[in-house]
């Protein structure tokens, strides 16, 4: 493949996305597109280094693109001009087939499983519809705390994202309703009671909005009352604690993002320069930095019953 005329689409301009667009720009690739529908928040700034405090509230994709474009990074590989990043401040599932088909590779640093499933389905669909004229490799990065993984998906040649869903960790804990209603023993039980039993009773017509300070305060007060009533130690209960229990917030740090994004970009460059054989190469790379720094790679087997990629089997 000719690296001088390459177009890459980056999904997400968060922790991974900022790293991916930076690293690909440093390779001097001519045209990068980045899509994200979110705006910048203070809690992003410990890892999303293309943003600063004065960018809070602005769209992520635009600010990331502007941060790179402003620097006028020269293209490499014999191309004149500067690296150009095109922002898309929108929901990626609004992209049509023609738009997606213009890219050579798609690299994702998304935080949503549903968005990944959508692009995975779309790329397989494009491959089938074009009768293998358009095969766009999809490289997917994901991190949580000091762990992460990078998956290479080439429609028709490797297993797909859908096939690997069963390998995702189950991050949900379930509580019996009777524990919440009658036998609360922890602060989490009190908070869940306020959230799923008291709130709908008081406000049957609208779900609570955790972004709203008023709603959060209401939930906090009811949780506190519940804890007092049942003699549950509550000196640690704060609105932030309530938020931590009700919202699944993924721990995130710049180092893991840098490692996984670097791994995704390395795969992208290796693909573009024909360094790897998609028929045989390892496709999944797993990383864990909690004890030492272990990374290993293997070729993920296709799930024979996969609804997305079994058409190619």
């Amino acid at each position, binding site marked *: 493949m000719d690296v001088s005329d390459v177009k890459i689409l980056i999904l997400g301009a968060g922790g991974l996305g900022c790293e991916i667009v930076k690293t690909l720009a440093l390779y001097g690739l001519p045209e990068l597109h980045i899509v994200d529908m979110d705006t910048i928040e203070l809690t992003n700034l*410990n890892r999303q280094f293309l943003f600063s405090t004065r960018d809070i509230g602005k769209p992520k994709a635009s600010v990331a693109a502007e941060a790179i474009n402003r620097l006028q990074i020269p293209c490499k590989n014999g191309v004149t001009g500067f690296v150009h990043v095109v922002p898309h401040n929108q929901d990626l599932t609004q992209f049509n087939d023609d738009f997606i088909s213009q890219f050579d590779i798609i690299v994702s640093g998304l935080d949503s499983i549903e968005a990944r499933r959508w692009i995975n389905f779309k790329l397989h669909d494009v491959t089938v519809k074009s009768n293998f004229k358009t095969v766009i490799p999809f490289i997917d990065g994901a991190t949580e705390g000091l762990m992460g993984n990078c998956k290479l998906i080439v429609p028709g040649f490797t297993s797909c994202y859908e096939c690997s869903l069963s390998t995702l960790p189950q991050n949900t804990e379930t509580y019996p309703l009777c*524990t919440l209603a009658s036998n609360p023993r922890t602060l989490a039980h009190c908070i869940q009671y306020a959230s799923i039993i008291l709130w709908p009773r008081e406000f049957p017509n609208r779900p609570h909005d955790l972004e709203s300070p008023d709603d959060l305060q209401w939930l906090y007060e009811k949780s506190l009352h519940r804890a007092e009533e049942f003699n549950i130690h509550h000196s*640690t209960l704060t609105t932030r604690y309530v938020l931590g229990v009700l919202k699944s*917030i993924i721990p995130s740090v710049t180092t893991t993002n840098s490692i996984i994004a670097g791994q995704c970009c390395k795969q992208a460059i290796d693909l573009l320069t024909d360094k790897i054989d998609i028929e045989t190469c390892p496709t999944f790379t797993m990383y864990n930095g909690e004890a*030492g*720094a272990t990374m290993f790679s293997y070729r993920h087997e296709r799930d024979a019953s996969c609804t997305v990629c079994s058409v190619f089997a």
Partner: protein
Amino acid sequence: MINTSFDSNQGGLSCIRTSVKDQGPRALVQVMADQINGGLDDRYDRQLMIWGHSGQDLLSQSHVCVVDDNQTLLMRECVKSLALMGIHEITVVFGSSNGSDFVNKSNSDILGFDALESMNPDVTFHIWNENAVPIDSQHKLWNSFSIVICLCTAGPLLQRVMKLSAVPLIMASTNDNLGFVRLIGSEPHCVIDSHGHFTFDLRLNRMWPELAEYHESFDVKNMSQEEVSSLPYSVLLYNVGKSLKSKNIPINRKSVRAEFIELHDSILSGPLTNDLNFVEAERSSFLLYDQSGPFPHNLTNILNSFHAEPNSTINRWVYQFVRCIRIFYDLRGDLPVSAFIPDMESSTKLFNAQKAVYQRKAAKDKSEIMRILAKENYSLIPEPLIDKMLENLKHLDAIKMGSLSSATRTISEKPKFNKLLSLQNDRHDTTFVSPAMASILGAMVSQECVKLLTHQYVPVENTLLYDGDSNETSTFIL
């Protein structure tokens, strides 16, 4: 008894499970510990979930020095990560061998010093040319650093770093698709919290009098269905163990399971899986035959790792604390009891009562540990750290650091590592590093640096080789 309308018509405690999200007990313990430590800072919110306020406080007191011949991409990536994570002070020292005496603050550089300096207002930067720093390796400037990161592969700057003896040192380099990270220090490094798999020890097979009395107070066989459903699983386990003992049946997985089913079916109707406290009891039945072992291996490892009192403050505190735990163990034949017990499906009243039994014993054991600490003249350890270590007895550890004298040793089983060393010794062109390799290696270096500074998670022991051809790492001791 509190309103039971939710379960009264469903028989026992067989309840509908709601699927609500939770971060698991560990994350909550972490959040709780952090709340106690006070202040919150939204900028670091997501990483506080990884190492807590206690870890972040240590970072905000640290001064890290990064040394490199040239202003390489690897160095910039490394400094970028350190700055974003909130290291208080970062000093960059670069060589003058490449002819430039001034700091190149080019705007067109995505990771130029301007950009790095504006990434986090909490960080203070110093950028020095090698000619401006003291030649003497014993100079107090070098000793003011918490850690020195050396990315030089040759030259006079490397020679100066190789003379530093007191400060922990991280050496790293990358060439083509290979990279290594090596941790060097004059003494082993203690880990306060490895964040390993969390296990509870309820002491069901070696109870103290109050715990035994509490468990004896339930006449399970003569209870109503509802009363049995409100019992914490430890009471069920205790009864099963007692009954097996009275029948002279050895306690093992099979006998415990059979006895469980018998106990369940004698009181309750329907399958055992309907009764959550029975389900939990079965899942934790290993607590019955989990015998009190010898003094834990990880604690022995800490004591054996040091020939004398450690020099660095936190290492010394961990060592002193573990020595006292050993004294306690020799006196009492067991470790101090933990104040934390897992949530057990049961009535609020019974759970609170049981929790209080553990908390009273934990407080008593802690005061004995405090007495031993005072007697040994180890009174400087901060109490929050003592509390943290008491909760983390299974997650304390020590790792051995590499020595400066072995820094250039090759190792026959690792041909790729030898290749990397020979490339750098030949003064091969090390200034070009691919952006992806710089991103990966720079972050790995900063991550190891943060593990050393926070004493949380387990650092590499002691040399890591990253192989970009196979996308794999390997670790070995040099």
